[in-house]
């Protein structure tokens, strides 16, 4: 249940869109938009400068939120 943020339009080829719609349906996504968003978010993790969990873990320990 997402979709609270603002959205923009992105153009992709019709054929690709049609294939994504089919897969999104089979895979149980509510909409093809949700499916595409998930794919993009997942891919972004590979390209962005992913800092290890260690940074977050240290901060959260200092704040007293994890043991």
């Amino acid at each position, binding site marked *: 249940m997402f979709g*609270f943020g603002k959205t923009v339009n992105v153009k992709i080829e019709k054929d690709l869109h049609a294939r994504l719609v089919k897969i999104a349906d089979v*895979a149980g996504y509510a909409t093809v938009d949700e499916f595409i968003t998930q794919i993009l978010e997942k891919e*972004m993790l590979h390209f*962005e400068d992913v800092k290890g969990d260690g940074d977050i873990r240290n*901060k959260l320990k200092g704040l*007293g*939120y994890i043991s």
Partner: protein
Amino acid sequence: MSLLTDLLGMKPAPQGEPIVLVSGLPRSGTSMMMKMIEAGGIKVMEDGVRTPDIDNPKGYYEYERVKNLEKETDKSYLREARGKVIKIISFLLKDLPPDNDYRIIFMRRDLDEVLASQNKMLKHRNETDTSDDNAMREAYLNHIASVRIMSRKRQNWQTIEVRYEDTVKNPAATAATLNAFLGGKLNEKSMVAAVDAELYRNRKDKLK
């Protein structure tokens, strides 16, 4: 869970009453949300170990044991939270046991405000912090993306995102949204009254 079940979106059998779980980064409004849900009529699972302080004058609503979710293997105690609300920070969502159904309220707040508030809290706790805010911001962004991906994959999770700023500005709208999400039996008027805008102290427009 089999690949087929996963692909077809088939949900597993219900596992008792769902656990209402308030989550998010620390300082994103999770305590305020706990207070709202409690006011709405859902019992809180907390132990009162962490007492109110300057950072959370109205209390933390925490259950100490969940802070060890990463390391502890026996997580059966969480079943006691069925039908109740419990606070678990988003970093520990990955460690939730699969034998419960979860209704997760994922608090979101401007990350500059979150970091400013966290840094103040670290000072109050006399903790040394060498982290760089820009690096932490990126790490948190990636963390949030990973939680959203997890949320879509886990069949026993239903997740809603709630913005802290929006809730302070318009608590009635958030109360109505949450009531619909949690079954429609909450007392929205009490939920609205539980929101104290005075506690919205680290506002982006007032940060350096």
